């Protein structure tokens, strides 16, 4: 609590109207994200992990102010930017870059790579023509592309190269923060590694902070400093990466880890399912703890009462290990 975090979410909630088109009166609301809070320190990476429908993308979009929150607030360097002043909003946008999942959809097909990368500078009126051109060249080089690649159009690049262009664009205004929503999932593994190394180098060099959305636990374990696990729109567990992976407390976190396929275990023989069933729909959330229908440890209490996030760590406030479970697991998953 000593320092002001770079980015802070306080009680972010998102509700979408359910059914009903333009003409129909919408009947009810579905909660995609409920009361989520997190802190991202400068120069570090916070990973939001979870399965499809857990609300991680909606959460990232709210944090980036691309989707208005139904409740809660986003603070940048301690200043509220949700519903805040125009100047706070503009300053926030200038200091934040975005990378999306699909490099085929996130680049304008009619813009050259150089123009795409220069676009944020044009919008924010940064630099003169010569400075912008110089900056574009240096960014291309930074993300591992050649100086002449700037003249090419997106369709001539591979997926991995497109994602590098998207990253270069995100870095154009020298942001302190990059919000990356599944930036690797469209890439082959060998290309994923190149991208991860690049992101890590940029973090070391420029002191970038990443809000990193991913479903890949093994990548997160190596790349992130802190991790928040989401289930049906809520954080169910959060801790620094080492603590979370060594002593996961929520049965869902443990199930996720157990379900990750590994080499060296040999052929499976069936029957060792980590968690039965599938993630529930936010349209009809289970009562009590949302995970209880799939949880091996669920008891009556879990069906009746939703567990609150509580600090279960033994460390101080800075290393809080929080978990929302009536019967958290203890002990290490490996020596």
């Amino acid at each position, binding site marked *: 609590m000593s320092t002001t975090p770079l980015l802070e979410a306080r009680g972010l909630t998102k509700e979408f109207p359910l059914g009903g088109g333009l003409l129909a009166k919408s009947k009810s609301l579905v909660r995609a994200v409920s009361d989520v809070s997190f802190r991202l320190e400068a120069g570090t990476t916070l990973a939001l992990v979870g*399965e*499809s429908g857990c609300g991680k993308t909606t959460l990232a979009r709210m944090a980036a102010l691309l989707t208005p929150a139904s409740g809660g607030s986003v603070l940048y360097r301690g200043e509220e930017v949700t519903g805040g002043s125009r100047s706070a909003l503009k300053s926030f946008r200038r200091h934040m870059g975005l990378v999306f999942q699909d490099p085929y959809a996130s680049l304008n097909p009619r813009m050259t790579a150089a123009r795409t990368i220069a676009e944020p500078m044009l919008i924010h009126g940064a630099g003169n023509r010569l400075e912008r051109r110089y900056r574009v060249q240096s960014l291309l080089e930074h993300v591992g592309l050649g100086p002449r690649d700037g003249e090419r159009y997106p369709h001539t690049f*591979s*997926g*991995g*190269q497109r994602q590098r262009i998207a990253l270069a664009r995100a870095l154009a205004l020298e942001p302190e923060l990059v919000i990356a929503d599944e930036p690797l999932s469209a890439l*082959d*593994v*060998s*290309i*994923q*590694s*190149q991208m*991860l*190394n690049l992101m*890590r180098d940029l973090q070391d060099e420029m002191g970038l902070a990443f809000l990193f959305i991913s*479903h*890949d*636990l*093994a*990548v997160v*374990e*190596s790349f992130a400093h802190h991790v928040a696990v989401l289930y049906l729109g809520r954080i169910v567990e959060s801790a620094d*990466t080492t603590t979370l*992976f060594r002593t996961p407390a929520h049965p869902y976190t443990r*199930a*996720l*880890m*157990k*379900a*990750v*396929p*590994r*080499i*060296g*275990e*040999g*052929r*499976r*023989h*069936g*029957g*060792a*399912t*980590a*968690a*039965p069933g*599938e*993630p529930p*729909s936010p349209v009809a959330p289970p009562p009590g703890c949302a995970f209880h229908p*799939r949880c091996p440890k669920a008891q009556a209490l879990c069906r009746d009462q939703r567990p609150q996030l509580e600090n279960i760590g033994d460390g101080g406030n800075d290393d809080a290990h929080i978990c929302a479970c009536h019967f958290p697991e203890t002990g290490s998953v*490996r020596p």
Partner: protein
Amino acid sequence: MSDTALIDVEGLSIAFSGEDNSAAIPAAEDVSFSIAPGKTLGLVGESGCGKSVTALSLMRLLPPNGRITGGRIRFDGRETLSLPEAGAAGMEGLRGRHMAMIFQDPGSALNPVATVGDQIAEVFEIHYHLARDVARQSAVKMLDRVGIPDPELRARSYPHQLSGGMKQRAMIAMALACRPSLLIADEPTTALDVTVQSQILDLVVELQNEMDMAVLFISHNLAVVAQVADEVAVMYAGRIVERAPARDLFAMPRHPYTQALIATLPRLGHPQQRFPAIPGTVPDARVRGKGCGFAERCPLADATCHESEPALTADAEDRAVACFKPLETSALS
């Protein structure tokens, strides 16, 4: 191998005709493998390596601009490339009944305007000429078998009313309705969440054991393939570069590409500062020169590797590798 194999592919080459009159682009070259009943071959590689077109050619379902330019496929004693398309004795009679396929995206493989039950019942009607109500009952049984809760009700659902995992189960039910002897699974869990993926892998293994099916399991993910395969073939730039029993391949890869692919796989419990990467990108099939397809990215490549293409050569231990400088199996492990 080939006398006990259910399916035997030998020297298969596939090409796609380009736009205009440009030369045909090779998508797979000289691909050979065989699978025995009850066994699983994992076919691994990155996007564009030719694994999916290989699978489609087994079913003879290549898109119109794709063509088999060489090789042979023998399935259960029949040369499928010379079979007629129509009739019970042709490919139509094999597909769905003796060989079946499941895909990455069940959403686009299922008919959106027919109920799941009707789609499965149709398989029984076509191949077994069952009466409608009997076929419906069999469909419900099949849905039950693949672990769909409340199968009576679900048989009346449309695909959009099912979750991704349930749709994949329904597609498996449809593919396995006739108890085919060969199942081709093309990235069947790639679109699924990791907890659901684990369930589907269990289901495939369980049904395979029950039906003694041969399975060709295609994936870009080595760890997924490790869950199901007895033998693994690694494809790169249209060719199989290494083939070995699964355990040996993962423990002692011999092709530098296989080794690199294993190294790039992030592993839970082994956090790392640097992510091992393979430099460069896969060569463009349109402009590929002579030499080994991996030479440009290979740390061991020398002049020979850039000059000529290594052939897939088998050794004594059921392993084959296409490399002039294969890694020593003893030096690793």
